């Protein structure tokens, strides 16, 4: 502390006789010290502005234009939005995004919570287990979906084989409505549960063990400890994973695309056409980039709304608990 106070600060050294006496070298040094932080952040912000921030604004701009693949943009005001909000396929894909989102996110986070609880014990083979749980996370969407498309195959799929053991007739996973959504959700759950379990585990390990001891002294059993110590302690972490999973669910694209064999229609009647797939279909199958931009922008606004709602709800619930 004291050392910091009387150290010479490069850049402003008023008591040393004024700038005239400073040799050019140390003035250069001082200038370098002051400008260095900006130099450090410049490369990041240059790329970031060009390919992160600018597209954000540009998407909104494009959404106000008729813009076909390979031609120029022409201003059409809010026509694309009118088209979107009067389009049944949009509402279908919005609804499918929500149902697949719920089907994949809720079981995923609950499983992850349970897994994290188990992983928090003193375990032999801890590293092996953690790495095993993360292997699906390291697998690409494309690879995972191609494998699960086989596993969920109608005639030769292993799932139907297992169901046959308990006397259930083969399910046509891909062509059914809910069945296709469940299959896609399973892919998401497989890929992300282990990752979320590790995030929860990290949160659990930062909860002080004194709290558990105090709860135990008060006679709280295992479940009560989980309910009254672990869960409240994890609240910020849980909120974080909910937000991240919500955004992820709104972006589902590769899974429904490849589960349908590369078709952007999301099944014969669009039973698993997500918003991401709908946008891809508009932009790169029908060549309507302006409409695709409109879908992207509306999706983004929906996400912002959802995240804000999430945060608000969890604050309300936090207040009610106390």
């Amino acid at each position, binding site marked *: 502390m004291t050392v910091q106070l009387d150290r010479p600060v490069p850049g402003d050294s008023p008591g040393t006789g004024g700038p005239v006496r400073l040799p050019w070298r140390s003035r250069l040094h001082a200038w370098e010290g002051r400008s260095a932080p*900006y130099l450090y952040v410049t*490369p990041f912000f240059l790329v970031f502005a060009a*390919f*992160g921030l600018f597209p954000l604004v540009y998407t909104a701009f494009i959404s106000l234009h008729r813009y076909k693949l390979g031609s120029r943009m022409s201003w059409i005001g809010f026509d694309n939005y009118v088209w979107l909000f009067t389009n049944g396929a949009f509402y279908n894909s919005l609804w499918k995004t929500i149902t697949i989102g719920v089907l994949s996110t809720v079981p995923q986070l609950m499983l992850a919570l349970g897994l994290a609880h188990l992983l928090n*014990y003193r375990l032999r083979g801890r590293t092996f287990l953690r790495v095993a749980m993360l292997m699906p996370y390291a*697998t*690409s969407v494309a690879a995972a979906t191609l*494998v699960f498309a086989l596993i969920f195959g109608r005639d030769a799929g292993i799932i139907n084989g297992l169901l046959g053991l308990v006397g259930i007739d083969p399910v046509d996973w891909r062509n059914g409505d809910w069945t296709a959504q469940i299959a896609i959700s399973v892919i998401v759950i497989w890929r992300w549960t282990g990752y979320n379990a590790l995030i929860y585990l990290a949160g659990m390990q930062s909860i002080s063990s004194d709290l558990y001891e105090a709860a135990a002294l008060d006679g709280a059993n295992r479940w009560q400890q989980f309910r009254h110590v672990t869960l409240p302690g994890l609240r910020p972490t849980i909120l974080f994973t909910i937000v991240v999973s919500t955004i992820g669910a709104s972006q589902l694209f590769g899974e429904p695309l490849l589960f349908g064999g590369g078709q952007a229609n999301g099944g014969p009647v669009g039973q698993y056409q997500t918003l991401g797939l709908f946008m891809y279909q508009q932009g790169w199958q029908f060549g309507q*980039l302006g409409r695709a931009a409109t879908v992207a922008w509306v999706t983004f606004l929906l996400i912002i709304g959802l995240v804000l709602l999430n945060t608000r709800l969890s604050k309300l619930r936090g207040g009610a608990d106390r």
Partner: protein
Amino acid sequence: MSAPAAAAPAPASQQGARAATGPEQGHLAAIRRALPRHRGRPQDAAGLTTYVVLGVVALLFLAPFGYMLVAASRPMAEMNTFPPPLLPGPDLWKNIATAVRQQNIGLALGNSLIVSGIITASTALFCTLAGYAFAKLRFRGRDLLFGVTLGTMMIPPSLSVVPLYSIMADLGLAGSLSSVVLPSLVAAFGVFFMRQYLSSALPDELLEAARMDGATALRTFWSVVLPIARPGMAVLGMLTFMTAWNDFFWPVITLNSTNPTVQVALNNLGSGYVPDTAVIMAGTLVGTLPVLVVFVVLGRQIVGGIISGAVKG
């Protein structure tokens, strides 16, 4: 200089605390012994049930990889039986060769290596630079800039796809590897990660000492910050490499099948009318293996990185 002085009181106060709580500790221990074992507490040894459940879950997580390998190495007719064969068959190399021939898998592997390599190197360097500035330096607008960085971490990838497509077409880069590399040269997450890492790993005293020795800012970064940042950069690098290797949405849009990355090749493999699923699985296996090998070898560090990134997030 000040480090030993600051460190000195700590052990003393710890000893003091220990001495003071000595009798109480015995008391607490007695209560603890009298209580039924509260198994829910962290760091208790796991029971048999826990091992069984975790074992089953691990099996479920790993089984698809086994299925991938078996399906890639046998004729489809054999996979149609139930229960399916559990061991790899003889056709693996033949199927891999077919997949490589049909979908440019060899070229795709090379392209993915180039793309992911460049993205990893540039993310590690630029995000460390920015992360260091945000963690340890004071400058006007710092909090605002960092806030902007954090806020955009949550921007979904689909939002920028249409404009990126238009920008790349204008730059004449459509379909090129550069169009995949450019948007991913830096990542907001990387800045956040390195800032967290450096604010705890890099002692102020070291920067102090470098300053007193008259080191220039760049020299300080090169000889003081970088060596300390290296373990964090390694973890960030691994996570970035994995993300870049697996990136799907944008590469599928901008690249075509003549010059694909691995994920684009897999997309073509799964979208084309390749009737032979064994070939599809062989391609999938080849495209997944590099990341999985990295993951198995360095898994411990990656897990540590995700956990340490999460705690502070």
